[in-house]
């Protein structure tokens, strides 16, 4: 059995390697470019985008929906794995919570970037009207953010205390920070009871909050008369889609963290195997809702619906549509059915594919619908009949994604991504069981 020191040595946050520093530099460059583009957008207005009176929402909104979807992973893994007492969750949940936190913060930022008057963003609170789904969003996003934050923070307390001790000599400044953040954690029975209770309450709360968040996001669209949005299927459709996007992001992130931080001993093939099954299940459920969303309307479609479906199935958007459906859902399920398909490296690539498809999926939920209004598109410039993001939009969106990755990278740098105290406790338990048996 490993000693306590060894555990801490293995799991304590490590300094950035050279590769990580390059990665960081790259992120900062992308973020900076997007920042400049955004400053220009604020100064000259949304005309720097390719949005128009028909394609009135575009890549910003689809990126927002993607972030919201990804942020679901924290709620989903924690609620499902923690509440069902799944042992294999230990090395995974913290990364899931970190992803959720980064994603939900960036969702909030992205929606403000889309506003024509970001200077009036506070009006959504000052003049809030409860009948608008946007107001529901303004309430649920911060609420979910706080819940995810505590979900990450409470279990961290014992680890922070350990790290305070660990860095006392080598890095007193860092140690002081950990000390402050650990809120004087001593591991006393009272503290432990309080912590356990708090975690339980948050864990129970976070699943409904996550479900509400996804549903409200879906209602932003289904509360309009638009063809392709006004669907009663949208709530569960978005929830199951969030499952897919979130778990795939988790797989990719965990693979990278494990590789860079050398955590192969703690995050094993066994964990990937489990995650693979989880992802396959998520894809299958999402496929089911996709069938509801696209196949049934195709049977009894009105003229407008027919036009909409045609652009997806065989028309303008068919390449993306089939890529996200076949490449992003069907192929992954097939690969994940095989044991070899659930090995870490294969899973990484499958995960990448699914994340990419998930992002484009949001794009084709948002865009094609807007280009098929009830009245014909007439009397406006010809370019308004189509939409593809402008350079500004790509730069700003890239910068949003990079900021999410930056938050992720920094949190992974300074927090133990695998819970130290818990891993030690579990290994002690395991040992006891073994010696008890023999």
């Amino acid at each position, binding site marked *: 059995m490993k000693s306590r020191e060894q555990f801490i040595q293995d799991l304590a946050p490590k300094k950035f390697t050279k590769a990580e520093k390059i990665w960081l530099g790259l992120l900062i460059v992308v973020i900076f470019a997007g920042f400049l583009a955004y400053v220009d957008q604020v100064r*000259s*207005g*949304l*005309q720097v*985008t390719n*949005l*128009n*009176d*028909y394609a*009135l*929402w575009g890549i910003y909104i689809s990126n927002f929906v993607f972030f919201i979807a990804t942020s679901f992973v924290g709620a989903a893994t924690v609620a499902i794995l923690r509440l069902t007492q799944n042992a294999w969750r230990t090395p995974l949940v913290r990364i899931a919570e970190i992803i959720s936190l980064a994603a939900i913060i960036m969702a909030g930022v992205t929606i403000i970037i*889309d*506003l*024509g*008057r970001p200077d*009036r*963003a506070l*009006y*959504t609170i*000052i*003049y*809030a*009207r409860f*009948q*608008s*789904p*946007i*107001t529901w969003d*303004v309430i649920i996003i911060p609420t979910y953010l706080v819940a995810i934050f505590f979900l990450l923070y409470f279990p961290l307390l014992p680890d922070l205390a350990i790290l305070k001790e660990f860095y006392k000599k080598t890095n007193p400044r860092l140690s002081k920070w950990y000390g402050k953040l650990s809120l004087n954690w001593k591991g006393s029975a009272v503290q432990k009871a309080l912590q356990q209770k708090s975690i339980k309450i948050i864990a129970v709360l976070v699943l409904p909050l996550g479900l509400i968040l996804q549903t409200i996001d879906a209602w*932003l669209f289904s*509360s*309009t*008369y*638009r063809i392709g949005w006004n669907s009663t299927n949208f709530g569960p459709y978005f929830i199951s889609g969030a499952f897919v996007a979130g778990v795939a992001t988790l797989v990719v992130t965990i693979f990278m963290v494990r590789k860079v931080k050398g955590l192969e001993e703690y995050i094993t093939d066994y964990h990937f195997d489990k995650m693979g099954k989880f992802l396959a299940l998520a894809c299958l459920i999402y496929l089911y809702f996709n069938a509801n969303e696209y196949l049934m309307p195709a049977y009894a479609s009105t003229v407008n619906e027919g036009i909409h479906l045609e652009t997806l199935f065989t028309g303008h958007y068919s390449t993306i549509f089939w890529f996200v459906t076949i490449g992003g859902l069907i192929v992954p399920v097939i690969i994940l059915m095989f044991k070899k398909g659930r090995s870490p490296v294969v899973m990484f690539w499958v995960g990448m594919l699914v994340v990419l498809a998930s992002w484009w999926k949001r794009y084709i939920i948002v865009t094609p619908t*807007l280009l098929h*209004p*009830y*009245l*014909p*598109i*007439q*009397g*406006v*410039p*010809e370019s*308004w009949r189509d939409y593809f993001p402008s350079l500004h939009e790509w730069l700003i969106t890239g910068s949003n994604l990079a900021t999410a990755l930056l938050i992720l990278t920094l949190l992974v740098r300074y927090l133990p991504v695998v819970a130290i105290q818990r891993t030690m406790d579990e290994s002690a338990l395991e040992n006891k069981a073994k010696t008890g048996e023999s």
Partner: protein
Amino acid sequence: MGKENKNTRRKFLDKGLKLGFITALSGFGISKVASKLNATPNHDSGSKMELMNTNGDIIQVDSTDVTPVEHSSDHDKKYNVREGMPNRKFVMVVDLAKCKNALACQSACNKHHYVTGDNAWIKVYNMQESKDTAPYWMPVTCQHCDQPACVTVCPVDATFKRKDGLVLIDNERCIGCRFCMAACPYSIRVFNWSEPDQGEIYVDMDMSHHTPTPEHAGKPSKMGTVDKCDFCPHAIKNNELPHCVTACPNGVFYFGDKYEDTVTNGDESLRLSKLLEDKAGYRYMEALGTEPSVYYLPPTDRLVDFNDGLENYTEYESVAKPE
């Protein structure tokens, strides 16, 4: 179906509210009634007055019961911009049989509202439902819906519905989320993607002492906010007709008050109910339940040739740009 549901729901809510009110007030009410019963009536001054009631019958009333109503001189003109004019309900009727895409409405609208973007507030669509049915020209303004989808979704009450039927936008309030544009099934809302090029107008109109209100006739438009057809509140306030109505050489547009049951296109005034009955008027996309304030008369017995309109038809332009 949907509409009926909405109505019954509303009725139910209405009833519930009223019931609540009655319960709350009844305690207070009973004591009031009791005091009334105990009081001796003073209806005995001896002098009676003859008055006409709303049915047109002459009735006698004790003169002590009559108190004069205070009349405010500017009753019609002074009103809250967000509330609208009291006891009015503005409607429009568009006679498709007369429209030949002269586009005078559009030019007038663009001019008077200083529309500087790429998308006009009023558009005349080249419509043809299917290849065997006849094509026709269809002017579309904001329908000033009584169940406006745009108002429902606005998070900050920037776009609002007035009692007189108008749906307007407060450009000082709008945050530019464009949710209302997504919600409007008639695609009539336009967005100020860039700084509206209304510089000279500012100087012309001497806007310096002007407090902005939603009745500005589109000036000044604000970057990052939405605009749309407003039924010209600046004109109706002065008892004038909207610009599209007066501009149309073919008398396509009728404007009026539903409560007065009259509409006029400037040349002739007609009974709204009779016009709709005689010409089988309808509202566009009635099935959605948005309850528009704009009625259409079908393009039957046409006075004009569809093909005449093709001359003016520009598929990719609706706002003439200065050379």
